[in-house]
């Protein structure tokens, strides 16, 4: 592998990794506090992307406003899902909530299909050429992607670790019963959690939509690698989610000269299985008890 190829693959891995990492970030929050793998995450992202498309359809070309719409819609959707379904499942097994989230994922996707149709949409964003530095293609849009992903991570980190509501979220994540007897209104914490999750889903959906095309199955397709990143990153660690996403993306792309392009997508699962075989709690996983 020559240096240019190596750096190109590295950069490609970073791009994929940041996109996966954003989705993993949304998964991770719910994973940590509500304690289940939220299968509907991908489809909530899809809804966000379509919200952005709808705003674009109104003639508003500002990506910021589109993303704002995506964020707001996803936040609302998440709170609705919580109120209608997830809150009623409090105290039930992880599996029950997981299955319900699969059901919700199906319902959301079906609704997107019915409303938006199967045809692809795209965000009309002026494209920029890559800058060539010694054979390495630097994509200006990558900068925005990185700023968005790390910005998102920073916001989530700040909310979790620097605000009272974030502290309460972590307390609920640690021990729901103790949190309640410490006077924490778990319901309000959960609403806050779902709002935060929705915001991340909105951003992640837009980022995915901008980089690819917007289709009803978009979010679902990214769910499995995002799961892998969320588990590897360790529950409750926003930094871990992004870092694990990046790590998986980079490992995946750098592996292509050796394993080819079809096996690379199996790599995140292989990595997941190997790492969990060695460290059943995940790469950065804290000592979260087996429930």
């Amino acid at each position: 592998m020559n240096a240019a190829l190596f750096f190109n693959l590295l950069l490609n891995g970073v791009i994929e990794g940041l996109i996966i990492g954003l989705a993993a970030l949304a998964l991770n929050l719910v994973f940590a506090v509500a304690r289940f793998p939220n299968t509907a995450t991908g489809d909530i992202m899809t809804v966000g992307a379509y919200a952005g498309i709808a705003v674009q359809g109104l003639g508003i070309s500002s990506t910021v406003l589109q993303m704002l719409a995506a964020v707001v819609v996803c936040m609302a959707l998440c709170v609705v899902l919580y109120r209608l379904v997830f809150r009623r499942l409090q105290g039930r097994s992880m599996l029950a909530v997981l299955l319900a989230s699969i059901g919700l994922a199906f319902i959301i996707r079906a609704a997107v299909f019915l409303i938006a149709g199967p045809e692809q949409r795209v965000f009309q964003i002026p494209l920029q050429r890559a800058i060539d530095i010694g054979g390495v293609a630097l994509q200006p849009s990558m900068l925005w992607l990185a700023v968005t992903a790390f910005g998102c991570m920073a916001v989530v980190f700040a909310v979790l670790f620097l605000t009272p509501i974030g502290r309460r979220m972590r307390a609920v994540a640690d021990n729901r019963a103790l949190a309640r007897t410490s006077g924490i209104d778990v319901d309000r914490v959960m609403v806050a959690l779902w709002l935060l999750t929705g915001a991340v889903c909105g951003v992640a959906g837009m980022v995915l939509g901008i980089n690819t095309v917007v289709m009803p199955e978009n979010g679902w397709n990214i769910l499995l690698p995002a799961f892998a990143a969320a588990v590897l990153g360790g529950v409750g660690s926003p930094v871990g989610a992004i870092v694990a996403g990046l790590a998986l993306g980079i490992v995946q792309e750098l592996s292509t000269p050796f394993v080819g392009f079809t096996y690379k997508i199996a790599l995140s699962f292989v990595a997941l299985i190997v790492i969990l075989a060695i460290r059943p709690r995940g790469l950065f996983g804290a000592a979260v008890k087996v429930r």
Partner: protein
Amino acid sequence: MLSYLVAIAIIGGIYSLLTLGLNLHYGFTGLINFGHVGFFALGAYASALLTLAGLPFAAGFAAAMLIAALVALPLGLLAIRLRDDYLAIVTLGFSEIIRIVITSEEWLTGGVQGLPGIPRPFGGLGVGGAEYAYLGLVVALNGLAFLLVHRLAASPFGRLIKAVRDNEVALVSLGKDPVGVKIRVFMIGAGLAGLAGALYAHYITYLSPEQVIPLVTFYVWMAMIIGGTGRNAGVVLGAGILVLILEGSRFVRDLFPGVLDTEMASIRLAIIGLCLVLFVLFRPRGLIGDGVER
């Protein structure tokens, strides 16, 4: 009409076998397996490839069960060390790995072009006869699996299984080995899924990676949730309802011609999703399950 019903019954029987296997995993040991389609795929391709190579059907079926069970061994060893939620994701990833291997190893599996012309048994019985005979085979194998699971549950081994499910700690203190028990059950359940795969392969006669996607796993989970975990009769009932939902859309189309058309896939997906959500919310025991939930 009858032959169409026979076809539906065969597909339903295949799902029922898959669900029996999953029920053995979850209902009896609490191991959360979201990679069921992986075992199904292994069985389907194993039997298809062996019979295409000229081996008898019996050998294909046996190999299907064996390979699925053997692959379940390392996965099970990993599984028992993991938290439930991690396990769900790891098994899902496992089934994707299987699918990607099938996609990539063209020399063996035909890759994306698929495997056409998989032999069908009972060719000597004529068209109709072969169908009935196949249904008979599916029903008989379901019956055997049913009996097997039943006997397992009633045997000392089965009581051990129940003990594992209900109180692992107590079991360890008794000096029994819950790990070994769980692994064995995991392998048996996987073997049943492999058998279902073989039945599918020889009935549809064409296999491609597109047929072994995670959606199949979710379907099976839905069947189990609707029917009810832990009870075999519930499992069979759930599989029946699943096929009814999947196939029922054809009749809906007849009733409301033209209205639904392309929306039908979405509506089917929504119905399955709704069933999952509603059953989890309001009927966690399923229709006739024993209601054990951890």
